[in-house]
């Protein structure tokens, strides 16, 4: 039970967690855990169970995301990395040759991200800055394979697109978490998602998949898009 892209990849497996099958990633830094996650042993290696209630990317995987748009060696720009729960699993999968630039502006959560994730993982580069101003962190990031955006702002799609223009490779992927109430509480969530995907298409992307994240997160969607070459 693997996603197509990751067949033959040893860094992600499906593990039994209670009654459910959840993904688990090969711990890049054995013995060091990110958020009190469950740990399972597989073929003598330590895997960290990826909780879909804590990570929207795991929720998307369970809800039918066809492929994870990154693999060993990928480079990723992650906006709104928060305390780094999702980032830690991505870091496991991209391995030592990969790199994840994690942008977070709120000092309180950025502190936990730096302390618990970035300090231990050599493929994670923390950036404490505002995702609204991609030119500011120009020094750190070069073009990446994937831009992952989870920032819950009314203008999040515009911010995502601006970052993609500066930092995403041609044919690179965009994963955008849409939290409908953060964009407009008065509108029908479904309408909002359609609206946001339209904006993405107008900015030069194909939409590959739109995944609803219920029951893990209500009124949340994940849009997977690809930048046209």
């Amino acid at each position, binding site marked *: 039970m693997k996603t197509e892209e990751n067949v033959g990849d040893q860094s992600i497996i499906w593990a039994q967690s209670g009654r459910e099958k959840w993904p688990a990633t090969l711990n890049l830094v054995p013995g060091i855990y990110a958020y009190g996650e469950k740990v399972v042993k597989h073929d003598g290696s330590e895997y960290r169970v990826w909780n879909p209630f804590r990570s929207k990317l795991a929720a998307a995987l369970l809800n039918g995301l066809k492929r994870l748009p990154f693999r060993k060696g990928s480079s990723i720009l992650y906006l709104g990395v928060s305390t780094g729960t999702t980032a830690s699993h991505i870091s496991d999968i991209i391995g030592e040759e990969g790199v994840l630039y994690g942008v977070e502006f709120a*000092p309180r959560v950025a502190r936990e991200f730096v302390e618990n994730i970035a300090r231990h993982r050599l493929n994670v580069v923390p950036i404490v800055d505002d995702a609204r101003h991609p030119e500011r962190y120009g020094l750190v990031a070069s073009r990446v394979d994937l831009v992952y955006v989870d920032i819950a702002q009314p203008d999040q799609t515009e911010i995502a697109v601006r970052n993609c223009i500066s930092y995403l490779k041609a044919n690179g992927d965009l994963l955008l978490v849409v939290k409908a109430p953060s964009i407009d509480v008065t509108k029908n969530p479904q309408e909002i998602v359609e609206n946001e995907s339209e904006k993405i298409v107008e900015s030069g992307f194909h939409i590959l998949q739109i995944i609803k994240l219920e029951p893990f997160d209500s009124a949340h969607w994940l849009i997977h898009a690809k930048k046209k070459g």
Partner: protein
Amino acid sequence: MSVKGTLFTTEAGCILLEDHETIVSSRKFEKPLEEFTAISKGEAGPELAAFVKEAVASGVAPISVESTMIGAFASWGLPVEQTEDSFLDKLRSDKTGLMIRAGLVSSEAEAREAVRKVALAAAEAKIREMSTSVDLQVIQSVQALDEVDKTVNGFASRLKEWYGLHFPELGAYTSETSTYAKIVLAGDRNSLTVDQLKEMGLAEDRAEKILSAAARSKGGAIRPEDLAVTKKLAEEVLRLDSLRVNLASHVESTMLKMAPNISSTAGATVGARLIAKSGSLARLAQMPASTIQILGAEKALFRAMKTGSRPPKHGILFQHPDVHSAVKWERGRVARVIAGKIAIAARIDAYRGGEESNLAEALKRRLQELKSKPRKEPPPKTEEPRRNRRENRRKRW
């Protein structure tokens, strides 16, 4: 003859290129963190500045730099222009290669390590800087104050229930928590004396009343071991109460220093709560008055936006004495006026500083004006049919 050059900065050092490809010179930063921090603020640190001046002296001009750095160099009269985006992009995509060829690092792994190290140190420095601001201290103190307040109230009412079994009449004569707790500490109701009560700061006639109430009390006897634990609780109430007083005065004095105008318009504690709710003084200063007016009533606001019901008139501002003492149908207007002045006050406090005495006076005058022109109680609102309500509200907004 002068040659055109391009400056490319990396975490490990800076590189000067000619003809869009040849590396002419480079300089490995001795203090990469300092240089990097300066660059990310659009400034040039001493090492970068020296490097560019040297390049200009050797006849390279103009030098193209990243758009964010133009100001820094131009202000020193150096001949700079902006690097074209497409070229900058090309440089960035080959950043590691450039770093190696320029001799800043010896391998790809080393380049990545250099980038990471600087970014980590910069992130830590930034977090440290962001955690230093005084408003974070005010936010923590006012939230501690609110929590302690809640705890004291809970413990105090428990104490009144408990000691009330023994002396139920006492509550009617002492509304103040600390006095009540002190009387509990004095012990059995029959052992109280006027002198004891006077020492606690009670007036003589009040003390007499308490004693006569004790004499004809309907309360039951209390066993010494029960009284002993009740006293322990009273001690705790007193201790927490003094902590509360302490926190309140700390909030007040910090607010008066940090945000004198918010303090004079909203009151120190309410002002501190507004800052806490908005996240920081700077954020509060960027909010429109209408947002400040309903800060703390988000739930009601979102419900109103969703269902079209009536929006809230006040949030935290309800705690402002002029708002909650106003009659119900005037509160919205009073809250709006106060919020307007707080918005101005916050901007002065955040950006200019200093106390603006006119502000509080103008607010006072305006509130006086409102009071002198009272409105009549409006007739009760008839509920519109739910389906139309949303549309109608929209129009009205």
